[in-house]
């Protein structure tokens, strides 16, 4: 094997910097809570700075809600709820269609803001996050006046006031996944964006104003864990939806015990990406890269365990390692960046800790050589081989650009190893044989199975986990059920 594949060769043709311009982003210096259709100062909350994790520069000050803010928000939402539910279905739909179209119109601004606030490459926010968010609103707008077809019932009714908590890895997209179905079903919603990424949700609030959405129908209440905990435990909430870590999901489920409040949870994962010997190998390698390095691996359904058939192990690892060297890590606002910043100092610490554990436990670590910018939070794409199924890096969710490779000999062994996890969010299957793809898909205990692809999302395709990856589905008609009650 030639040596040039192991190391980076000297650059003949360097791409010049291609930074997306930020001058059209209208950032305010401070953002209040979005309650009853307007921005307000917090009652017992406080203002906190939100930073750009690629530069550590302050972007804006954002109000975090305190317990009294939560109570006040619920009150205004409660009073807006009956009128919203009483609107003719198509009228409600038209508000959601407006929001979808406005997201499309302001997509560039939203993409830049998402990248600045969260650290993900602009190419991803521009080409994946924002378009999918618009599509999600458009799709659910169309269900609003067709609910009885969606859930096969003659009469349905909304639940009322829903509390929704979303994470920092796909801030606007997760907000769309939560708000769109909730509103379509006639509920009003109180959304708590993540601590480190409130900005696009606040811009979405402006979009709601532009769409003339009746005040109180959507409330945006940024905050930290305490704000979320207050929302979960508050009186007057008819349903909770949460996307985030399994640890917090567990707390929420426990907090709601005995209350009768319905809850849906979309939690962590340690998804297996299974490559068979009869896979289209070059495309499988792309799928592995996409599966774990997309969004720096900050993806609940990331393919963080690579299960490769032993007969093609060497070939796949060689191709994968070589391909990893083409990943461009750097300024997320540069249009050519593939791997952006880690979302926070905290998350970086966690990744480093688990990677150290991997080395300590005896796995072999390879990290691509690349220059890490001086400021900001960064972690270079990393590959672990000689991983045993019991290693921490094979069991625990790292939520970073780190892939652990394990091998298998037969189809049955692949299934067993893939299912041997407390999680069950997603899986990838790479084989050119259709019948194998379908049998393995059927056997895997995972809510989303990608065959010969990975990390594809669509508003029509239900998404959610098995086991400790959560319960409830988002997307498609299945995404309506958690948000309504079937009367008959």
């Amino acid at each position, binding site marked *: 094997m*030639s040596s040039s594949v192991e190391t980076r060769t*000297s650059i003949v*043709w360097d*791409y*010049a910097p291609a930074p997306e311009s930020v001058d059209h982003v209208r950032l305010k210096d401070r953002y209040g809570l979005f309650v009853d259709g307007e921005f307000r100062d917090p009652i017992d909350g406080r203002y906190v700075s939100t930073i750009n994790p690629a530069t550590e520069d302050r972007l804006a000050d954002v109000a975090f809600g305190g317990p009294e803010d939560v109570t006040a928000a619920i009150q205004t939402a409660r009073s807006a709820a009956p009128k919203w539910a009483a609107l003719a279905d198509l009228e409600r739909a038209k508000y959601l269609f407006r929001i979808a179209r406005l997201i499309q119109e302001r997509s560039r601004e939203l993409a830049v803001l998402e990248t600045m606030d969260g650290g993900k490459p602009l190419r991803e926010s521009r080409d994946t996050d924002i378009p999918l968010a618009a599509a999600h609103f458009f799709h659910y707008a169309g269900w609003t006046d067709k609910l009885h077809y969606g859930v096969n019932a003659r009469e349905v009714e909304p639940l009322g006031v829903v509390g929704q908590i979303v994470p920092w890895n796909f801030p606007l997209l997760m907000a769309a996944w939560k708000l769109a179905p909730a509103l379509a079903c006639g509920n009003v919603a109180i959304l708590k964006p993540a601590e480190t990424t409130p900005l696009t949700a606040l811009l979405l609030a402006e979009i709601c104003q532009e769409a003339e959405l009746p005040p109180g129908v959507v409330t945006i209440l940024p905050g930290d864990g305490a704000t979320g905990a207050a929302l979960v435990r508050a009186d007057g909430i008819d349903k909770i939806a949460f996307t985030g870590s399994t640890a917090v999901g567990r707390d929420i489920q426990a907090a709601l015990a005995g209350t009768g409040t319905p809850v849906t949870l979309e939690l962590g994962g340690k998804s297996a990406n299974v490559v068979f010997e009869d896979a*289209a190998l*070059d*495309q499988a390698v792309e799928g592995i890269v996409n599966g774990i390095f997309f969004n720096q691996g900050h993806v609940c359904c990331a393919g963080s365990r690579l299960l490769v058939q032993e007969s093609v192990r060497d070939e796949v690892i060689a191709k994968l390692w070589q391909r990893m060297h083409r990943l461009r890590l750097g300024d997320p606002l540069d*249009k050519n960046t593939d791997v952006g910043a880690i979302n926070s100092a905290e998350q970086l610490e966690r990744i480093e800790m688990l990677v150290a554990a991997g080395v300590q436990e005896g796995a072999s670590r390879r990290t691509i050589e690349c220059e890490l910018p001086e400021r900001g939070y960064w972690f270079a794409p990393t590959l672990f081989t000689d991983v045993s199924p019991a290693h921490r890096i094979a069991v625990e969710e790292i939520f970073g650009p780190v892939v652990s490779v394990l091998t298998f000999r037969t189809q049955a062994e692949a299934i067993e190893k893939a299912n041997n996890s407390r999680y069950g969010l997603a899986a990838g299957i790479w084989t*050119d044989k259709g019948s194998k793809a379908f049998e393995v898909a059927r056997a895997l205990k995972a809510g989303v199975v990608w065959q010969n692809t990975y990390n594809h999302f669509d508003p029509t395709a239900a998404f959610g986990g098995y086991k400790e990856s959560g319960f409830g589905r988002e997307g498609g008609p299945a995404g309506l059920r958690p948000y309504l009650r079937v009367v008959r």
Partner: protein
Amino acid sequence: MIRRLPHVDRVGVEERAAQLGKRSIKTTAKQQGIRMAVSMLDLTTLEGADTAGKVRHLCAKGVCPAPTMPEIPSVAAICVYPSLVATAKQALENTGVKTASVATGFPAGQISLEAKLRDTEDAVAAGADEIDMVISREAFLAGEDTRVQQEIIAVKERAGDAHLKVILETAELGSYDHVRHASMLAMEAGADFIKTSTGKAASGATPGVCLVMLEAIRDYAERTGRTVGFKAAGGVSTSKAALHRLVLVKETLGDEWLTSERVRIGASSVLNDLLMQYAKTDTGRYGRSEDFSKE
């Protein structure tokens, strides 16, 4: 013998090729890319109406594409039919630009093997530095891999010192699996370059086709240590398309492959678009077709 085709997933290939088309090539990188692309051109004329006069004009253009922008290099080669090789050779004397000739009954290749070999000999005798042959799609689609390879070996032998480019005519092969397989057959039979298309079929060097062939070249080099070059022909008609192909080369094979020894682009109209885009990076103005001579 049962033919075992490699597994290539079309959706995955096209996604990756399209993603690489989103690379943003600006300012200095764009200028450098354009200069590289020009240096890799096989400036081509393959028309029934070609005459010595037309070929001489094309040669002059290829040697000095833009007198007002002296930093623009000469093209790599001029590509013509065998009957015009002598004219081209003479016009290109002492310029460093190579004379390439199509052969073997280009473009359809539906003539006897003897006729293909005579065609090759004629081109070589007239002074061709490079021969662009077509594989027998008739043999390939009938599953006769051995015959496909034997023809290539025979042509290579007649080509002597001339470099042999083997045209797969990917539009006629029907699938990426076939493109990959044909690439391997050609390389194993001794091709110096593999080339996507004749430029006369419905489609040519689409991004997906280029990616599949580049991956085949990479794997072959890995396995045997032998470097086979890549030529994209057909459908590369804009500067943006040319740069996209260079990005595919760079991110599949690496920077050391960005040389006309290993990469060629077969085209005619793209040259003026490359020049217009180059001028724009200097002046900031969108150009018009009159800004550069048409041969």
